[in-house]
């Protein structure tokens, strides 16, 4: 009874105090605000508080019990067990409560809820996506800025990041009080922000794709360097010079390109994290990365390439496995991510990678604390978790001298909880932001539970009320008068007014209708009155004779045990592998029919020796090197690894359509290993692919040669030292993009290509002039024209999409005019019509075995295209342009045999001839000494319909093996089943 009363009164005091503070705080601490004149009465409420009897976690790993925290004017004055309570302080008894340093959100969009789309006034960059001149504090809108939602999760400060465009603007650190941002800016200029994805808000504007976005970031960083130099040059000696453009967006990036201001990337996948970090290879920037929750996939890379990481705690929705049919449609990729996402922070911490947390990516911010606890349940230490919310972001954001810990002199930003914040069921009761108190979880002060003796002048109302609290805030009870016990209906409490209400069916207790009770609760007394059906008003009172027992805290169902041992595989999906396959020092393949695709032709009953990833010898009866791994391939065929000259899988976005000429974009920037097709293509013997830009542009982006190194990181797929190539596109596709984009005819296609060629020559001349004189305004480096110039100078090989003969001839004539050679025409359905012209120009052809009829320019297709081209002397290759076809290129070549092509020639169209047209024939395409050991072992003639690949080797490593595949299938089934079981258990 005594104890109960004490708690009751204590709570009451806190409530009262917080109520007072809440209403007056704005003036109380606001008084220190600086320049605004005072309106009305001054508010001089003291801001001195002593929080006593608390457990104080001053910093991760440092806890003081029974301690006092003294704050004065928003600053911590003292903290500790022996901290003196100032005589002018308001005292808060925090018996049983815990104080933590206030959390810091290292990447939020606080105050950015309604960003401006148009930036019509003032000077600015050419593209609405370049908005680096904007600042978070300048754009901040404090109406409904979202502070309350972050405070409710324990946050007291946040980095506010402008959300729009590619270069979004400057991120500033803002505290999470309410009201004008002027009083809330902790530090400006913490970082400049950048996104790796396009912003759809601006409509049909370059960049329209991730490739274009990366190209724009690259160009803009160069532009920022140029802007500084150009203005310096002009300032030094303006006489006789044209004034360079004033571009505040580029000026704002000055510190970024000098590495003096961080650039914070918004990365939405593990690949985007890699893309962000790879900018360090080219620029001396200092990147921060807001991750996506997939970082566990690349912990090895991140531990070797440390950058500040900011992690969201948004976990994927539970995959839908409700019915067996639904389960059938769920990928292991999604199942794995569902299971592993909560482990993301723990897995990073295990590799000693430090990070900060953010509420970003959470649609509902109130998921933050529950998800934080899930992350802790999944193995993250509480200390690391707290660090990621306090000292890590404080250091990252450069506010560690004022924020991040509870120490005297620091800002009074902290959290009060009723239990360990990482324990399920603990609640954040209040948050103090730089001395301002914000109540989060009101503690009810009015508790009617217990046994009450009711006294009334009305005889029928004399009796006993039994009130119990079923769940916090939910009451039920009975009223007993004499022998009659009736159930109370709608028992309720209005906490702030301390009012109690209940009712019962009076007819059972001798009343003439429903009885409604109402009373003012004054500790253990009820002062009430009642009516019967709106009449017969009568007074009553009651005294609590015994309190009810404390309601039991809800038992939390234990989450399903995290006991699955999912191997760390790459890619983190079905058929992923734990490591790159071994490379035997020596290897011999014996007794095979070897299609060398070199001068030796097809050798029967032959051997091949491979050393450290290179072919050393091919011939009959070879002597195996010592300790060689031996493969008996009797009855089998061996061919070079197949090469696909034209593929679009394994990239994030294929076309940059925001401009007719996009030679600056690079497919290498957007490779992704999270691509099931790569495994399927390996299974079909594909070892190398030329991954191409799409066909939306007369001059499109730069393509990339990759090897199908399943299990590697995206940049490890790159075919080393392959020549640069660029995609051109002629005919229907480039002229039907958008409604207003030039060109709209084949005539325009020719003209815009020619125009850019001339522009590139002028650009070259400008640079040559500058290099000769070195005076005046330096020319701007233009990555697009750099690439076009590379084309003209033969450094970048042209691989042109085409259909009709007229356009094929057009580009050859144009190239001849400008003095270069088109390397190959792709698709080229009508190449057969201009075979002599191709031979004379020296262009190759990369065509389909059989594809046509899908559009008017594809109507004159013939399956004899490749045959005629070959017969006329054109170097001819086949391509897939299709992820599935790329998984069975041997059958594409086989179709050529049906049209009358010799088998070896047909094979060359997916190996040696292809390598030649891609400029990689020094490395791949044939099995000859010195070539890469990229080969396929087939269970029969590779051009037969009855044949399949058994093993696929790249760099002398076995990346695919039918036997291993059988085991992987089993693993895939097992893992799916285990995780599905977890989902079913969790629900």
């Amino acid at each position: 009874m005594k104890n109960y009363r004490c708690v009751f009164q204590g709570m009451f005091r806190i409530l009262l105090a917080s109520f007072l503070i809440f209403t007056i705080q704005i003036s109380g601490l606001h008084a220190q605000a600086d320049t605004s004149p005072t309106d009305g009465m001054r508010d001089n409420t003291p801001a001195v508080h002593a929080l006593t009897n608390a457990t104080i976690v001053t910093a991760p790993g440092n806890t003081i019990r029974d301690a006092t925290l003294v704050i004065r004017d928003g600053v911590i004055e003292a903290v500790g067990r022996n901290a003196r309570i100032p005589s002018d302080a308001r005292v808060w008894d925090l018996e049983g409560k815990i104080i933590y340093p206030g959390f810091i959100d290292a990447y939020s969009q606080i105050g950015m809820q309604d960003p401006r789309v148009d930036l019509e006034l003032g000077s600015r960059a050419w593209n609405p996506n370049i908005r680096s001149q904007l600042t978070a504090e300048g754009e901040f809108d404090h109406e409904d800025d979202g502070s309350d939602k972050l405070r409710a999760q324990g946050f007291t400060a946040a980095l506010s990041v402008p959300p729009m465009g590619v270069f979004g603007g400057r991120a500033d650190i803002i505290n999470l009080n309410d009201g004008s941002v002027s009083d809330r800016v902790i530090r400006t200029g913490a970082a400049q922000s950048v996104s790796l994805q396009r912003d759809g808000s601006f409509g049909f504007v370059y960049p329209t794709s991730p490739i274009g976005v990366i190209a724009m970031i690259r160009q803009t960083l160069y532009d920022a360097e140029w802007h500084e130099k150009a203005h310096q040059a002009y300032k030094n000696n303006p006489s006789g010079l044209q004034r360079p453009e004033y571009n505040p967006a580029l000026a704002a990036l000055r510190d970024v390109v000098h590495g003096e201001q961080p650039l914070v990337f918004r990365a939405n996948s593990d690949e985007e994290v890699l893309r962000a970090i790879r900018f360090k290879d080219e620029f001396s920037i200092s990147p921060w990365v807001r991750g996506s929750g997939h970082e566990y996939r690349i912990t090895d890379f991140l531990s070797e390439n440390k950058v500040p990481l900011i992690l969201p705690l948004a976990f994927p929705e539970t995959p839908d496995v409700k019915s067996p049919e639904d389960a059938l449609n769920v990928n292991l990729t999604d199942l794995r991510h569902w299971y592993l996402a909560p482990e993301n922070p723990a897995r990073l911490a295990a590799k000693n990678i430090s990070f900060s947390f953010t509420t970003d990516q959470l649609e509902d911010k109130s998921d933050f604390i529950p998800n934080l606890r899930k992350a802790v349940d999944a193995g993250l230490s509480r200390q690391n978790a707290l660090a990621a919310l306090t000292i890590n972001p404080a250091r990252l954001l450069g506010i560690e001298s004022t924020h991040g810990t509870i120490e005297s002199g620091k800002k009074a930003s902290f959290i009060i909880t009723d239990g360990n914040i990482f324990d399920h069921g603990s609640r954040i009761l209040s948050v103090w932001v730089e001395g301002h108190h914000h109540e989060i979880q009101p503690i009810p002060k009015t508790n009617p539970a217990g046994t009450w003796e009711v006294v009334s002048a009305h005889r029928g109302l004399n009796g006993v009320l039994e009130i119990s609290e079923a769940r916090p805030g939910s009451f039920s009870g009975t009223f007993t008068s004499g022998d009659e016990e009736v159930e109370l209906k709608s028992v309720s409490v209005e906490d702030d007014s301390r009012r109690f209400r209940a009712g019962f069916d009076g007819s059972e207790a001798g009343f003439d209708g429903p009885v409604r009770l109402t009373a003012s609760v004054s500790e253990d007394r009820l002062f009430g009155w009642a009516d019967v059906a709106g009449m017969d008003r009568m007074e009553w009172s009651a005294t609590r004779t015994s309190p009810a027992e404390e309601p039991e805290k809800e038992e939390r169902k234990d989450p399903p045990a995290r006991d699955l041992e999912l191997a760390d595989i790459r890619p983190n999906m079905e058929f992923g592998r734990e490591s790159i396959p071994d490379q035997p020092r020596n290897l011999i393949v014996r007794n095979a029919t070897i299609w060398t695709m070199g001068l030796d032709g097809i050798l029967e009953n032959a051997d091949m020796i491979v050393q450290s990833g290179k072919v050393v010898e091919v011939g009959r009866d070879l002597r195996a090197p010592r300790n060689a791994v031996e493969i008996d391939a009797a009855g089998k065929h061996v061919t070079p690894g197949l090469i696909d000259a034209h593929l679009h899988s394994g990239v994030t976005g294929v076309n940059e359509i925001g401009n007719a000429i996009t030679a600056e974009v690079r497919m290498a920037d957007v490779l992704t290993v999270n691509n099931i097709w790569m495994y399927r293509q390996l299974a079909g013997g594909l070892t190398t692919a030329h991954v191409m830009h799409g066909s939306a542009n007369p001059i499109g982006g730069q393509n990339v040669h990759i090897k199908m190194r399943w299990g590697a990181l995206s940049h490890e797929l790159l075919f080393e030292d392959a020549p640069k190539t660029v995609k051109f596109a002629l005919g229907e596709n480039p002229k039907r993009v958008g409604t207003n984009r030039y060109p709209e005819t084949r005539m325009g296609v020719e003209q815009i290509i020619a125009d850019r060629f001339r522009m590139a020559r002028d650009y070259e001349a400008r640079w040559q002039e500058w290099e000769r004189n070195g005076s005046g305004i330096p020319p701007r480096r233009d990555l697009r024209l750099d690439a076009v110039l590379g084309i003209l100078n033969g450094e970048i090989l042209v691989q042109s999409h085409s259909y009709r003969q007229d356009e094929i001839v057009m580009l050859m004539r144009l190239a001849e005019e400008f003095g270069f050679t088109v390397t190959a025409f792709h698709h080229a359905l009508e190449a057969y019509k201009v075979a002599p012209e191709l031979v004379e120009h020296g262009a190759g052809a990369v065509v389909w075995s059989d594809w046509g009829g899908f559009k008017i320019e594809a109507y004159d297709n013939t399956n004899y295209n490749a045959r005629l081209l070959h017969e006329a002397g054109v170097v001819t290759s086949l391509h897939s342009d299709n992820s599935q076809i790329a998984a069975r290129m041997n059958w594409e070549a086989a179709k050529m045999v049906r049209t009358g092509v010799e088998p070896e020639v047909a094979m060359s169209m997916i190996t040696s001839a292809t390598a030649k047209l891609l400029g990689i024939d020094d490395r791949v395409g044939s099995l000859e000494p010195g070539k890469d050991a990229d080969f396929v072992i087939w269970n029969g003639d590779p051009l037969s319909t009855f044949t399949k690949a058994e093993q696929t080797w790249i760099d002398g490593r076995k990346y695919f093996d039918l036997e291993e595949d059988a085991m992987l299938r089993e693993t895939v089934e097992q893992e799916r089943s285990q995780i599905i079981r977890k989902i079913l258990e969790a629900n």
Partner: protein
Amino acid sequence: MNYAAKTLQKRFTSNFFRIMSRFSSFMIVMIAALLISKSAYAQIPAEPQTAPVALTGGTVHTLSDQGVVENGVILFENGVISDIGASLEIPDDAIVMDVSGRHIYPGLIDAWNNMGIFEIGAVTLTVDTNEQGDINPNVMVERAFNAESRHIGVARSAGVLTSVTTPNGGLISGQSAAMKMDGWSWDEMTLKSGAGLIVNWPNPVNQRNYNREVKKLRGVFADARAYHIARKAMDEGNTNRRHAFDSRWHAMIPVFEGEVPVVVNANEVRQIQDAITWAEEENVRLIILGGNDAHLVGGHLVEKDIPVILTTVLSSPFRWWESYDTSYELPAKLHEAGVLFAIAGSYGAANVNRLPFEAGAAAAFGLPVEEALKALTVHPAKILGLDDRIGTLEPGKDATLLITTGNPIEYSTQVEQVFVQGRMSDMMDMHRQFYEKYSEKVRQWEEQR
């Protein structure tokens, strides 16, 4: 000299035919016959068979109980096979062709195609596959079949002599027809009209939408059945009420009378199973089209005797977790389960030449070679009720056959000549014609160099 005449002059010296003639002197004779009897212009329909033809010396793969007849004779008259055997009495007036070293197979059947109603994908006015609206049981593909389609000649060259041209779209797309790949116009090319009523089973991923769509389908069949009953009552004089003609429901009467099967496009396991139960309730003859998940419900298909037309063999699975060869292996699994199935092309009229290789992929991944071939001949004929005319080589059936250098599902095999109901078809097609024409350009260029 016009192009055709010039081609005629050059033909025997052209590269293409040099290669072709390597295989057989017989071919020269036959092609000469073709060229003399007709113009050299591509894709000219052959005239109906007038004299009996005896192909001698070849290996006849009957795909019937007769099995393989080595060094056999196949004799056909008026478009119909009269006899097959090791030694036959050949009528005096027969044209005898020595096909020693060659193989004779039944013509291949593409059980799902848009031949004749699809010409150029992106040119929508040349595409007649999808009629407006959801319920089109009354549209009949053969009525829109373009006999001039370029793709027909290519089909013949690939050995595909029957295309089951199938409409698309909506809930009920219309009725398919089995079309012969030679002839002057659709009426003479139609082997069977009403080969199937095409139903696209609703997508089950959104459960609510699925239920609504299935209900709609049931409603359509209930209405059509009510019409059938009412019209029957009227026609048989059991009522004096008149029931006006409803084109849609009238077209479905043959379905209720068991003459036309319902071909239900269903891939996912729910679609297949729900369609089987539905068809049983409706008492209609069901064929599953698509059938990606058919291997999961093989028992159900076998018990209810439901055949499947596979349309995605030469492809990769839709689900990432499925093994890379799931689609290639599907026919072998169905074969083991005892399901009757056909393999159809996945790529439509413009790429009909790929049909044999669909079966080839199945053979590479476990389906016995003979079964793979049957999935293009015997089985589709049986499933679609064409087996009285085609599918095997048997006396009484159509002389719709191939003369090849080997198994038509093997890539290296050349289809040298085809007969469609006894017509000796022109083996020139647009692909070959372009090859011919531009080989001439190369020749002229080489000559001038």
